[in-house]
């Protein structure tokens, strides 16, 4: 059986990292900073002038240079994003309350992934955008990259990239989580040096599509389905929680992870939680930022089984098991 995995990954985080109290003073939180602090957050990463495409390009440039990969090697680019933004326009200044600053209807056809392909000279790559899954979009792009690598012999290298930023002035607090801007980029290949994908699994519950009006129902729905999705992924991978060395989380609150760990019966020590406080919850890239940092910290060893879980509006629960 051909093995597919994440051969290399990098990420980009904006330099500006306001603390919770600074964000509170800026009016960028819905509730008191103390609540978010109690849930394990410390600071957010907030993009200033950079658009999400700028952040994506930063991450991809670093990836190509670190791995000494020529742009010509990339056969396919999958660009994931949570906020349905097909636009490449700069977000600043945006009219109050709006996410996009559309000057013209034709702006809808300015695609980030095409801009990225052009600016980074990925001329052998075809492209696709993946969205409408909230923070789970990057998991879908990994899943689709794997399927493509297994199905199409002439595709050797897939670049998965994910980037999101909240519009200027938007609240940084979403459902008791502190939201950051950021991007990640990954090279996916057959017979990878590390991070072989053992199993992926996703559940979508479209009944909750109207996220704004179903906040309480969404909080309640999150936990039981998260548990079944994690259990089903482990089953697909043919492993148990005991076999998992690290849980690499999405950076929703530490508190909600403690509850979820209780639900699945996983010891707290298995959670790589160092980034929840200092990075916050980047919509686009949490698990992969954490995967990279855990590796750089020397915590991961070849053969370690890793469980990655995320959740996105839509609603989408996504999970994968990797063999490092």
């Amino acid at each position, binding site marked *: 059986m051909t093995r597919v995995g994440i051969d290399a990954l990098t990420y980009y985080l904006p330099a500006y990292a306001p603390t919770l109290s600074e964000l509170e003073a800026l009016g960028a939180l819905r*509730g008191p900073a103390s609540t978010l602090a109690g*849930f394990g957050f410390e600071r957010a990463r907030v993009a200033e002038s950079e658009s999400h495409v700028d952040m994506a390009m930063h991450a991809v440039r670093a990836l190509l240079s670190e791995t000494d990969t020529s742009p010509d090697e990339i056969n396919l680019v999958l660009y994931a994003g949570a906020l349905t933004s097909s636009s490449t326009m700069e977000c600043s200044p945006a009219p109050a309350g709006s996410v996009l600053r559309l000057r013209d209807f034709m702006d809808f056809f300015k695609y980030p992934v095409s801009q990225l392909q052009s600016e980074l000279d990925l001329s052998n790559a075809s492209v696709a955008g993946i969205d409408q899954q909230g923070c789970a979009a990057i998991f879908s792009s990994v899943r689709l990259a794997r399927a493509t690598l297994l199905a199409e012999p002439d595709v050797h290298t897939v670049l998965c990239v994910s980037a999101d930023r909240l519009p200027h002035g938007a609240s940084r607090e979403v459902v008791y989580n502190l939201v950051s801007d950021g991007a990640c980029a990954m090279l996916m290949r057959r017979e990878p040096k590390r991070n072989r994908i053992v199993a992926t699994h996703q559940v979508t519950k*479209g009944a909750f599509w109207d996220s704004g009006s179903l906040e309480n129902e969404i*909080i*309640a*729905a999150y*936990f*039981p389905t998260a548990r*079944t999705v994690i259990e089903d992924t482990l089953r697909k991978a043919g492993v148990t929680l005991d076999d998992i060395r690290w849980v690499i989380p999405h950076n929703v609150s530490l508190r909600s992870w403690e*509850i979820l760990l209780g639900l699945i019966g996983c010891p707290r020590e298995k959670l790589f939680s160092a980034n929840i406080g200092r990075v916050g919850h980047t919509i686009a890239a949490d698990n992969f930022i954490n995967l990279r940092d855990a590796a750089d910290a020397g915590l991961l060893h070849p053969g370690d089984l890793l469980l990655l879980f995320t959740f996105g509006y839509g609603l989408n629960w996504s999970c994968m098991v990797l063999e490092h």
Partner: protein
Amino acid sequence: MTSRPASERRTILVTGGTGTLGAELVSRLARGSHASVVVLTRGTARPRPAVPPNVQMLTGDVRCGPTFGLDSSDAATLREHITDIVHCVADTTFNRPLAEARATNVAGTQAVLAFAKECQHLERMACFSTVYVAGRTTGCFAEQDVGGADGFVNSYEQSKAEMEAVVRDAMRELPIAIYRLSTIIGDSRTGEVTGLNAIHHALRLLYQGLAPMVPGQETGLVDLIPVDFAAKASHYLFEHEFSPGATCHLCAGAAGSATLGALLDATMTAFERYRPAWRKRSIARPAIVELETYELFVRSVEEAGNQVLLQATRAVQAFACQLAYPKVFDNRHAGVVLARAGIAAPNVLEYYDRVVRWCVEKNWGTAS
């Protein structure tokens, strides 16, 4: 106390005779025995069931001491005639401040006992309690056991255990039996629920998709009984097998109980069956979790200050935590006596579907 002349009718005082159990008992007592029945309640908003002609309604409050706040001559007349007392009054809300729960359940019962001591013709008295005086105890809880050694889950349980202590004390002077009921969930024949309790609130939250988790164990048994069994069994024991000093468990026992997992499955199945559109809402079966995890969730909801989830968790918390202390109620004594009369609690899964159906179709009693 002297025995009444055989020619005289019995007069049965039923305190709390309009409640979930009391209303069922009153109609049985009024129907079955050649007796007058006097019902004592505060007469609050609860819609009064149709009252048979030999039932007299009195408005009083057990918290007002041994005259219940009645006119003193009325109280004296009552004392003169009473031959039987069935004490059903209780504050059955699980999460009242302890002092409030005690005011009705302990001090109110002391008032009824003081009243009983003055009833010259009193022949027997039943005091209703709950099997959950067991509190946090796990394992087997028997009829002779006194609960609370491991503490209690809520103020209701604690106040009822304290009530039992007071009643046991009075047993030295009065012919009293304690009937400990399991949780009443509805009518096994119709599914009708006359008094919504924490279980029905939990069902509603589950239906609304606001119940992410419950504490307990998948295979832990949940003891539930239908109101018709509770009334029939207690009526039979009181009328035909009265045993002063006895404590009787009127419960489903291991044979009549279902596991928490099976009950959750049955709930989801019934929701889908009786509201096919509910399926589209993709609401997951709540996760069964350890108490520690459940309490962390509740604490997080409190800290977040989310009012909707806060109300939801508070509505079930006081009851739900009991699920984390799995236990089986031994009903050897009452079970044998009742079995001789062919009375046994049905297995909850035989009628549970009807109760959930009633809740769904009547929108928890708000639909006509």
